[in-house]
Each structure stands twice: as structure tokens, then as C-alpha cells.
């Protein structure tokens, strides 16, 4: 019997394919139409933080250095009001096996896949995570397939995407390269069905648990280096796993620092647009993922997303492309390290926030990633120029996404701007209301929704009147 492999038919088989490709039945956590038992789902995977750290140490993950950026901090203080300019630290996650924090996320999935007897793993990803899964799979003796959106209808691939695909292949993975479109998920399902491999989704409890070690490590490192807790931790935000896992790890270490998201503002560009695909210089860590995933986490390739960023997010800073390129170059010239775009996004957010904070405060940028051909900011800007984007120096606020990138002339022009958190929470509520009329929400649903946006029931009652 041949299966119906049309888009509609495959999407209709989603739940059944997911269940057999992860050995995880999400139905058991269901508490209502909206609510599910998030903490039980996270704990059921059976790994303590100590287990996670031990598993990760087997495959070259974790225990990455923490550096204080003395020169950048000094530069920020020169443009700040007297007494302002927090100490900036960075956790050098590029030191993980595949060159980014994503190795933490992939490590537990690969371990579980091997334990459960799967022959291979599959992940759908824009890139760094693919390299991480490929690297971890190689070390666990598993086959690996990465499903990646790579090229537009003219066959042109964004250089960073191309590099990330190359890295997956370097670790022995098969890379399925796809044109622009949301059907990536459709083809992921088909490939899972064909191979019977494990779905190493970014959004399983395994993926998020793996990042908890990052928050735990960074807290302990800052304590031992400064004798204090960090005051703020800046986290590049896209799908929400980085923020969720890090924040959970910080809480496990008893750290209550402000958890601040940071994304590159790509407003005006459509993520599934064939034209816009190659007119953005950032392939992740941007608002095209950051906002929709914050305001509705369950739009992903698993029934319930373990990455629920609004549960932990205290603030959200947006930076623009030109600002990140400026800070990337400054990191190299002032601090003597070249790093890739993801961590430099949160570094840009940290520079803008450090100016507002007292000089004795501590702000931690919790990741870096590797850079190189394709990923390098020179490569991105050169490609942007070839795509007809104007690149110039000036006031970065004048940049228009998809048309121009304006790189600051001076550090003082790196300002970032705040995303309205209340607006995000209301947007989440609207999305929840689309799933089920709020009049029909049970007490469990109400408590779940409030917790999912880090608010209480009193706030919920007020907020529901506004949507």
C-alpha cells in the first residue's frame, strides 16, 4: 500500500509520526484545552542537572570559559553618565563541540536516541542546531539527517545558511536542502516516517533540559569571579529554548538575575517570503522567530513546546542589523576575539543596557558562537550589497530592513530599543483566545496561561478585558 504523501495527508499524520519518533506521549500531560503539566513534562525525562552535566561532559559539551570584557566595558563607561556602565561578561559557548551553545541542546537528544535504540536522528533547523546534532550524533554512533531551508527560487543560498549546512556535512550528516517555505516541517515528517529515526526537535524537554547547565554554570562562574550574582543576563532570543533553558538553570542555582531577551529587529520582512529570504543578514536570533514564538510557543514541530520563553522573560531588547555588525567588529578590535552573529546580538543588547546600569552591576552575555567563511559579518555585508542592499555608516535607526543597513559611526549610537512586554503578553492572550474562547477556560487553563506569561490571576482578569 502506498501512503498519501500530499501536504494535507502528511500533516494529518503529524501526531502519530511524532509519537513514534520520540517515544514521548504528550497526551499524558494534558490538563485542559489549553493547560498541560509543564513541570511534570520537564521532570519526566528523568535527568537531574548532575546527569545532564555528566552526559554533556562525555561529548565535549559544557564547562565553557567566562570572560570579562574589560576594554568594551571601559569604552561603554566613556559614553555613559558618571557612575554608569555595568561590567560586561561573556560566556564563550563557541568552545562547545560544534561551536555554539546548541551542542547542549543536541547532547541529551542524541544520548536518549542512542539509549532508546534509534539508528539515527533527524532535526529541522536553520543551522547551528543542525551542526550540533550532527556533531553529537557522530560521537554517539548515530546516523544523522538535517533538514534545512537553504535557497530561494533562483537557487541562491544565504552565505551563513550555506556554511551551517557545510558544517553538518563535515560531521557526516546528510543535509536535505530545501527552498523557502514552511513546508520544511512537512518534509521533516515524511523523512521521520521513511527512516524511523529519532526526532531531535529543538523543542522537546531533552533539548531544553540540555541548556539548563548553561544557566547553572554561568551563575557559578560569576559567583567565583566576582563574589556576587549577576544582575542581568542577556540572551539572544529566537525560538525561546536558549532563554528558557538558561533561566531554568539560573533558578536551579538560586540566581534571580533579570532575564533579558534580545533579538535583531527584522520587522517588515516576511520569514516565508522567497524574495525576503536573501535580504536579511541574520538567519536566526531575530524578531521573525522571537516574537511569534514568545507569543505562541506551540507553533512548533512538537505537540507542546518545552521552550516557553515568556514564563521567564523580564525584559526584551531589540537591536538592528547595523548595530550588531558594529559591535561584532568592535569585539574583534577591542577584545581580540572573532565570534559569530548569535552571541553578538545579545552583546549588542548588553552594550546598550550597560549604559543604563550602575558601574558596579554585572551583565552577562550568555553565549558566543563560532564565525568563519559565510558566517563572518564581512561575508554577510558583502552578500547584502550583492542583493542590492545599501550599506553605509550613519545613524543605525535610519536603516530599513530589506533596503539598507546603517552601521553606527560611534559607540554612542548603539542604543537598541525596548520591546513592549505588556503588548507581547496581550498578544499571547489573543493567541490563546483563538484556541479557546476565554469564557470556556477552566481554573487550570487560567492558572496555566497566567504562569505562561509570568503573571498572576489578577493581571489575567484585567488583561482579558483589553483583548
Amino acid at each position, binding site marked *: 500500500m502506498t501512503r498519501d504523501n*500530499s*501536504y494535507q495527508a502528511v500533516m494529518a499524520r503529524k501526531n502519530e509520526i511524532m509519537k513514534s519518533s520520540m517515544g514521548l506521549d504528550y497526551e499524558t500531560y494534558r490538563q485542559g484545552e489549553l493547560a498541560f503539566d509543564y513541570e511534570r513534562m520537564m521532570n519526566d525525562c528523568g535527568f537531574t542537572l548532575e546527569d545532564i552535566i555528566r552526559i554533556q561532559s562525555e561529548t565535549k559539551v559544557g564547562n565553557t570559559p567566562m570572560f570579562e570584557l574589560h576594554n568594551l566595558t571601559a*569604552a561603554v563607561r*566613556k*559614553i555613559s553618565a558618571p557612575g554608569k556602565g555595568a561590567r560586561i561578561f561573556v560566556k564563550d559557548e563557541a568552545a562547545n563541540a560544534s561551536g555554539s551553545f546548541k551542542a547542549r541542546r543536541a547532547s541529551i537528544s542524541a544520548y536518549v536516541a542512542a539509549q532508546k535504540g534509534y539508528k539515527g536522528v533527524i532535526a529541522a533547523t536553520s543551522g547551528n542546531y543542525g551542526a550540533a546534532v550532527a556533531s553529537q550524533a557522530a560521537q554517539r554512533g548515530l*546516523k*544523522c*539527517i538535517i533538514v534545512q531551508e*537553504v*535557497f530561494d*527560487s533562483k537557487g541562491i543560498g544565504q*552565505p551563513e545558511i*550555506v*556554511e551551517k549546512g*557545510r558544517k553538518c*556535512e563535515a560531521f*557526516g*550528516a*546528510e*543535509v*536535505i*536542502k*530545501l*527552498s*523557502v*517555505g*514552511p*513546508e520544511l516541517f*512537512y*518534509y521533516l515528517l515524511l523523512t521521520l516516517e*521513511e*527512516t524511523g529515526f529519532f526526532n531531535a526537535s529543538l523543542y522537546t524537554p531533552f533539548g531544553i533540559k540540555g541548556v539548563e547547565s548553561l544557566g547553572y554554570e554561568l551563575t557559578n562562574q560569576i559567583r567565583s569571579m566576582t563574589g556576587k550574582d549577576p544582575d542581568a543576563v542577556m540572551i539572544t532570543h529566537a525560538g525561546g529554548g536558549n532563554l528558557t533553558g538558561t533561566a531554568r538553570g539560573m533558578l536551579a542555582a538560586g540566581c534571580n538575575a533579570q532575564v533579558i531577551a534580545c533579538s535583531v529587529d527584522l520587522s517588515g520582512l*516576511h520569514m*516565508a*517570503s*522567497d524574495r525576503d529570504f536573501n535580504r536579511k543578514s541574520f538567519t536566526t536570533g531575530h524578531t521573525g522567530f522571537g516574537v511569534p514564538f514568545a507569543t505562541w510557543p506551540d507553533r512548533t514541530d512538537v505537540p507542546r513546546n518545552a521552550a516557553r520563553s515568556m514564563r521567564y522573560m523580564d525584559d526584551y531588547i531589540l537591536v538592528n542589523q547595523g548595530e550588531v*555588525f*558594529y559591535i561584532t*567588529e*568592535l569585539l*574583534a*578590535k*577591542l577584545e581580540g576575539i572573532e565570534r559569530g552573529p548569535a552571541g553578538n546580538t545579545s552583546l549588542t543588547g548588553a552594550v546598550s543596557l550597560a549604559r543604563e546600569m550602575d558601574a558596579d552591576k554585572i551583565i552577562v552575555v550568555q553565549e558566543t558562537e563560532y564565525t568563519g*567563511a*559565510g558566517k*563572518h559579518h*564581512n*561575508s*554577510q*555585508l*558583502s*552578500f547584502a*550589497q550583492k542583493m542590492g542592499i545599501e*550599506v*553605509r*555608516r550613519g545613524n543605525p535607526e535610519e536603516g530599513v530592513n530589506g533596503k539598507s543597513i546603517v*552601521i553606527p559611526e*560611534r*559607540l*554612542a549610537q548603539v542604543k537598541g530599543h525596548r520591546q513592549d512586554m505588556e503588548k507581547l503578553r496581550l498578544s499571547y492572550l489573543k493567541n490563546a483566545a483563538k484556541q479557546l474562547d476565554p469564557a470556556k477556560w477552566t481554573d487550570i487553563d487560567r492558572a496555566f496561561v497566567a504562569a505562561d506569561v509570568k503573571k498572576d490571576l489578577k493581571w489575567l482578569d484585567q488583561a482579558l478585558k483589553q483583548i
Partner: protein
Amino acid sequence: MNEVKAGTWVEVEKILLTPEQRAPQVPEDTRHTPYVMRVAGFLTADSLYGTEVTIKTLSGRMVTGNLKVIHPHYTHSFGDTVEELLTIGIGGEI
């Protein structure tokens, strides 16, 4: 003419969904284009360039598609000179 030997590392291309078969939520400019896949692997039999062939991928899957590239490789680089970056961080930041 243009025969490629079995075992050669090649890339094939396949249309997964025609424009009519695409997902309903696809935006207008993308809707008019087919959904295309490219995969690399080892050619399973002597074949002609530009014809439908079967490859064995790195994960061991057999995939059929149109033979598009012989010896696919990467050419991405650090890009051309971008003068706007060169003057950053050598003084004048403050």
C-alpha cells in the same frame, strides 16, 4: 555523452511540491514557485547528466532526482572588501 560514473559524489534536485500543491499559508511571492529539494550522495549507477538518477546519501537513504551537479562543493567566503567595517575600532568610537 556526459556519462557520470557510478560512485561519483553528485547532487540531485527534485520538485517536492508544485506551486498548486504548496501549503495554504505560503505568502504570495513564494506561492508561485515550486518547493524544491537538493541532496548530495553517491551515484548508484553510471548515468547521464540531467537525467533522473538514484543516489545513496550519507545516511544511507536512496534518493531519486535530476542529476544537477557533479562533485558539489562549497564556495562561500569572507566576501569582498567592505570598507565600512575597516574604520571601526581603530579610534574615534567615543
